[in-house]
């Protein structure tokens, strides 16, 4: 208190000096300028950049995507009324980030299902495309890292998440993606892909947006925490050693049965081979 009083006293003594007005003016200008340089240019730069990003995304879109999705992302129908590419209005940035990051889009060729392949665009281009498609209509945004990342969870939190996520996974996901996330067949040549190449971010985005035939699990259907539990479970399957030996792709009875029958066939062949081959000699036995 004493110190404060002292300072206040000093200031008040110079308060009526001739230069006081100038000093206050200078201080005010300095403060305003400083604040402006701290806050305003940053947001101004972002606005410009976001616009530029959308523009850049549109350029990329016109070259790489518009053939199927239309010049304004409105979708294209074939003369038979089938869909060449669906409308992208309202699919959101998350869907673009998922499809392009996993290489599913752009399609190499039309087919029942877009396969995962190495991505064609780099991170900046994907961000630009996502920004452009997001500008077409409101849709789910790219999730924050804190939504899907498992970093920073304590060992116990993670174990709890794996247990909860496992139950959610068994109820909602195994029907198509198999108990071990190995994927499975779907009607008309489609398939549910294996989950073991996908990153945490991609799994979250897939849940959020429901790519291709997959139903979506929006935040109203499965809360962000529950999504992260599912991710924790999928990661835990990946880390779990194959206790029982080779899992044969974890495809279950089909792969295992095939292996067993091929093995039995091989053994029958070996048994026949053994019975059919014995070395013989032209020599005669000499009795002692």
């Amino acid at each position, binding site marked *: 208190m004493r110190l404060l009083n002292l300072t206040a006293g000093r200031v008040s003594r110079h308060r009526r000096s001739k230069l006081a007005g100038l000093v206050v003016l200078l201080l005010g200008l300095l403060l305003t300028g400083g604040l402006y340089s701290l806050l305003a240019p940053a947001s101004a730069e972002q606005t410009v950049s976001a616009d530029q990003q959308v523009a850049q995304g549109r350029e990329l879109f016109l070259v790489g995507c518009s053939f199927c999705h239309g010049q304004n992302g409105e979708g294209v129908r074939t003369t038979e009324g089938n869909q060449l590419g669906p409308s992208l209005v309202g699919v959101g940035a998350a869907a673009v980030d998922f499809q392009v990051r996993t290489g599913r889009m752009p399609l190499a060729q039309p087919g029942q299902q877009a396969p995962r392949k190495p991505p064609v665009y780099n991170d900046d281009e994907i961000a630009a495309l996502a920004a452009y498609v997001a500008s077409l209509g409101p849709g789910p945004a790219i999730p924050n890292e804190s939504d899907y990342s498992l970093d920073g969870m304590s060992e116990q939190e993670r174990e709890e998440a794996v247990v909860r996520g496992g139950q*959610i996974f068994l109820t909602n996901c195994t029907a198509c993606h198999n108990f071990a996330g190995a994927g499975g067949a779907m009607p008309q040549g489609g398939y549910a892909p294996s989950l073991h190449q996908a990153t945490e971010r991609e799994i979250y985005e897939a849940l959020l947006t429901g790519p291709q035939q997959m139903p979506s699990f929006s935040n109203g259907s499965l809360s962000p925490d529950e999504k992260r539990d599912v991710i924790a479970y999928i990661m835990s399957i990946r880390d779990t050693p194959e206790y029982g*030996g080779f899992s044969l792709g974890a495809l279950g009875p089909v792969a295992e049965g095939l292996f067993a029958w091929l093995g039995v066939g091989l053994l029958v062949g070996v048994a026949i081979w053994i019975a059919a081959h014995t070395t013989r*000699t032209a020599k005669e036995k000499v009795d002692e």
Partner: protein
Amino acid sequence: MSSHDDNLPVLEADPIADPGLPDHTWRPTDVDPAMARRAERQVAFWFTLSMVCTVLFFVSYFAFQVGDDPSTFFGLGASTLFLGLTLGGALLSIGIGVIQWARKLMGDHEIVEYRHSAASSSEDREQALAALGLGAEESGIGRRPLIRNTLLGAMGLVGLAPIIALRDLGPLPGDALDHTIWSKGMHVVRDVVGTRILASELIVGDLVNAQPEALFTGGPDGGPMEGVELQVQKAKSSVIVVRMDPDDIIPGKGREDWSVDGIQCYSKICTHVGCPISLWERTTGNVLCPCHQSTFDLGDSAKVVFGPAARPLPQLPLAVDDEGYLIAQDDFDEPVGPSFWERDSQ
């Protein structure tokens, strides 16, 4: 035809003499004692290798950790892998040794056995019949009908004993199969977590595997149900909730108000043999059963479009409560799951 008969060769008796069995050829180990000793060492080698494998089996059993922190070997469980490899090696080595022994060192006779008639000789058959006749005569089964009839009665009655035990399979289910735990106003909650579902938060394309709230509140002290009761109820009450574009839905007759803004609820139990079914394709609106590929079109009252199922999935009429959470208007209006004897075929 007949013109060719002249060209047929004249048949001679036994044009080629029966050569009989080929001469026996000897194995190297039969004629060369050095080879025989070598084969002996080979057999002994395999048996010794088997012993080594078995010792390694013991070592693996104690050396590798199982349980919470298992030892691994290139991502495989080390214990299982090496127990299998060593035990397999031990058995295989014994097998190879025995085969080697039999093929190279054991006797090498060639034996011919001719087939015999399968029937017994007529002498034996007569003897057997005579013995039977003597038995019937001495027991007096023809002369003492009282004994015969009581014996038949005793045997018939004892046959009923296992049949009466079948009663334990009952009691008959009555109308238990016709109803589920769903009732008017019951909240639809997410499976596993048990949280209520806000209709406005679901987007088109969303799938929710859901349960009646009673499974989470109907147990002891208002807690979740447990044990057999939970399984019995859950087996019938599991549902899927999907939100589709209302334009893609043809509402069933009398079912116009069973959905909420394109949110529909169907039984998750396949009507074929009762597999849980939730493979929903959002673009076609078809839901597929993983067991036998029955496919139901949720855009058209879950009509069967493919597969062995005979009837559509039962639909649960939905509504929302004052706060916008999904509730059931009522129980299913037909039995869920596969057909059964007493079910009407409608």
